[in-house]
C-alpha cells in the first residue's frame, strides 16, 4: 500500500470475514511500522486478541485497551486528537490508527457515533495521518453501512488500498440534516416545562427533578452545568422564545432546550476541540463532554439540543 496522504486520510473498511480484516489491517500496520510511523489499534477485546496474535508486540504499536463504546464521542475525539498530536510532536512523520466505532450491532446507539464519524474528517484534518474505521458487515446494520459511505472521504476494499469515495458528503451539511432520533421518554408528557427560563432557574428546576432519580450526584452536577450552558446558548445565540422540557425516570434524565433560531453556525462546534473557542462553541463542546448523550434537531420549529444523564433507554 503506498499513498501519500495530503494530510489526514479518513477511510473505512467493511469486511465480511476475520481473514478479510487481517489481510487488510496487518499490512496496513506493518507498512507503517516499517517506516517508523506509530500505529494505534483500538478494537474490542476479541479483535485485539486476534491482532496481537498476528502482529505481536512491536515498537511503535499501541493497543488501545477495550473498545470506545463506554466513551462519549466528544471525549474519544479529544483523546485521539491529543494522542495523535503527541505522536507527531514526538517526531513521528505520520501515524496510522485502526479501530472499530460503536454502533447498535455492538450495543451502542448510532446517532452520536454517526456525528463522531462525520466530525472526525474535519476535526483531524490538519494532522498527517491515516485512520481506518473497520466495520464487520455480519454485525453492522444496513443504515449504519450507508452512513459509513457518507462520512468517509476514502473507502478501503478488503486487501487493497484506500480509494477516494464519491458518496462522501461534507460533515456540516450531513450533521445538520440528520435529526437525533426521539428518546422514548419524549413520547410522554414532560415532567417539567419552562418558557424563557434564566439559566439559574433552569438549573434549580432540573436539580429538583434530579433529586427523584438515583443518578450519581457528581453526574448530576455535571449535567446541571450542561443544562445551564444549553439555556445560555439558546438565550445568547438563538431566538426567543426558549423552551425547556425535561423528563426523568429512576436512572435517566432527559432535557430538551429549544429556541426558534437556526442553530449553531458550525454544527460540529460541540465536537471540535480545536475550533471550539474561535466559534464561540465552548458551550456546546462542554455539553458534549458533560452529558452521557447529546442529540440535535434542526427543523422548521428551530434548533433543539437534547441532553441525557444516566444510561441509554431500556428497551
Amino acid at each position, binding site marked *: 500500500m503506498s499513498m501519500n496522504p495530503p494530510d489526514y486520510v479518513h477511510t473505512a473498511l467493511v469486511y465480511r470475514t476475520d481473514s478479510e480484516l487481517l489481510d487488510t489491517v496487518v499490512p496496513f500496520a506493518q507498512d507503517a511500522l516499517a517506516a517508523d510511523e506509530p500505529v494505534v489499534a483500538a478494537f474490542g477485546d476479541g479483535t485485539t486478541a486476534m491482532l496481537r496474535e498476528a502482529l505481536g508486540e512491536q515498537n511503535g504499536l499501541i493497543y488501545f485497551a477495550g473498545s470506545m463504546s463506554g466513551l462519549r464521542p466528544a471525549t474519544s475525539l479529544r483523546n485521539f486528537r491529543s494522542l495523535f498530536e503527541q505522536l507527531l510532536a514526538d517526531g513521528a512523520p505520520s501515524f496510522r490508527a485502526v479501530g472499530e466505532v460503536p454502533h447498535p450491532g455492538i450495543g451502542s446507539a448510532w446517532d452520536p457515533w454517526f456525528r463522531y464519524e462525520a466530525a472526525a474528517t474535519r476535526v483531524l484534518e490538519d494532522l498527517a495521518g491515516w485512520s481506518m474505521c473497520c466495520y464487520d458487515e455480519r454485525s453492522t446494520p444496513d443504515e449504519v453501512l450507508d452512513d459509513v459511505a457518507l462520512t468517509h472521504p476514502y473507502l478501503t476494499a478488503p486487501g487493497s488500498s484506500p480509494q477516494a469515495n464519491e458518496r462522501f458528503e461534507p460533515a456540516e451539511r450531513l450533521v445538520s440534516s440528520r435529526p437525533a432520533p426521539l428518546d422514548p421518554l419524549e413520547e410522554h408528557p414532560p415532567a417539567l416545562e419552562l418558557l424563557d427560563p434564566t439559566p439559574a432557574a433552569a438549573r434549580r428546576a432540573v436539580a429538583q427533578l434530579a433529586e427523584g432519580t438515583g443518578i450519581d450526584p457528581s453526574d448530576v452536577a455535571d449535567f446541571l*452545568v450542561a443544562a445551564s450552558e444549553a439555556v445560555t446558548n439558546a438565550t445568547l445565540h438563538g431566538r426567543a422564545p426558549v423552551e425547556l422540557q425535561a423528563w426523568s425516570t429512576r436512572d435517566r434524565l432527559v432535557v430538551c432546550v429549544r429556541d426558534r433560531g437556526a442553530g449553531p453556525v458550525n454544527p460540529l462546534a460541540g465536537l471540535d476541540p480545536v475550533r471550539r473557542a474561535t466559534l464561540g462553541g*465552548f458551550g456546546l463542546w462542554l455539553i458534549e463532554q458533560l452529558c452521557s448523550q447529546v442529540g440535535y434537531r434542526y427543523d422548521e420549529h428551530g434548533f433543539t439540543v437534547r441532553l441525557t444523564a444516566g444510561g441509554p433507554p431500556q428497551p
Partner: protein
Amino acid sequence: VIDTSLPRGREEHLICLRVGATLRVLRSCGVTHTAAGMGPGDHLCWTYDDRDSLPAVAVEFLAEGIARREKVLYFSSGSADPREEISALGAVDDLIESGVLGAHLLPSVATPGKAIDIAEQDSAWTGMLTEALDAGFTGVRVFVDSTPLTRTPEQHDAFLRWEQHFDRRMTEMPFTGVCAFSSRELGIEAATALARVHPLVRDPAVSFRLFAGDDGALVLTGEVGAEDSLALEQLFERLPDTGEAVAVDVGDLRFIAHQGLLALDRHAATTGRVVTLRHASKVVRRLSELLALQSIQIEGRP
C-alpha cells in the same frame, strides 16, 4: 487555620477560623432580611428603595452595638437632623455627650462629587478604632447610607475599591458595619455591584459575592452565571493590592459558568498574579481541565 461553614438559617452561613480544637466565628455571610444579630467582622449591604425605612433598621443595629459596649456611628444621607431620625435609641444627646454615639449628616462631612480617598479613609477609621479601644469600647459599629458618595462613575469605582479594602480590615479589627445604598438613586446595576463585595446582603437577587475570608483569602460564593463573568472580572481588577498571589475559597460556590472561569484565568494571565481556587468542587475541577485553563491554580476539597 481553615475555614468551614456552619448553617445559620436557610441562606446564611458563618465563616469560622479553627484555632486548635475551637472554632472562632470570623464573620457571617449570606442573604438576610435583618440587620439584627450582627457581630464584629460582619458587613452587610442594605440596598433600599424607601429612605424613610432606614432609621428603624439603624436603631435596631446600633442599639445592639451599645449593648455590646461598642462605639456606634450613624451617617444619614438625608437633610433632617440625624439625632431626630434615631431618637428611638433613647437619650441620644446623652449618648453623644458621653462619646458612645456619633450622628452625622453625610452630605455635610463629604465633598459632593469627590471620589473617596482610600488611604485617608483607612487612617481615619483605624485611628478612630484605636481611640475607641483605648477608651474602653469593644469595637466600632457604623451604619452609613453611602449613596451620596457613589453617584458619579469615578465615585462608584473608587467606592468599590474602598469597600473591598475596608472589608478586609473588618476581618482584622473589631468593626461591624451596615452600608446602605439607594437602588432607586444609583440604579439596580450600580447597587448590585456594590452589594457583591459584601459578605451579607439584603437583596436575594445578588447572584454572587466576593469578600474577605480568613488568612488573606477571598471568598467567592453564590452563583456566577455567564452574564456575571464580566462583573467578576471587574471586581478582580479592582482588588486592593494583595501582592502577587490571591487565594479564592470557592468551597461554597454553588455554580460558575465556564465564562467565569475563563475570566479568572484571563485575569491571572494578564496581571501575572497567582490566582488559586481553593476547595474547588469536582465539577469546577473538571471544567478547568476541559477548558485547559493555563493560569489559575485549582485545589480540590480535602
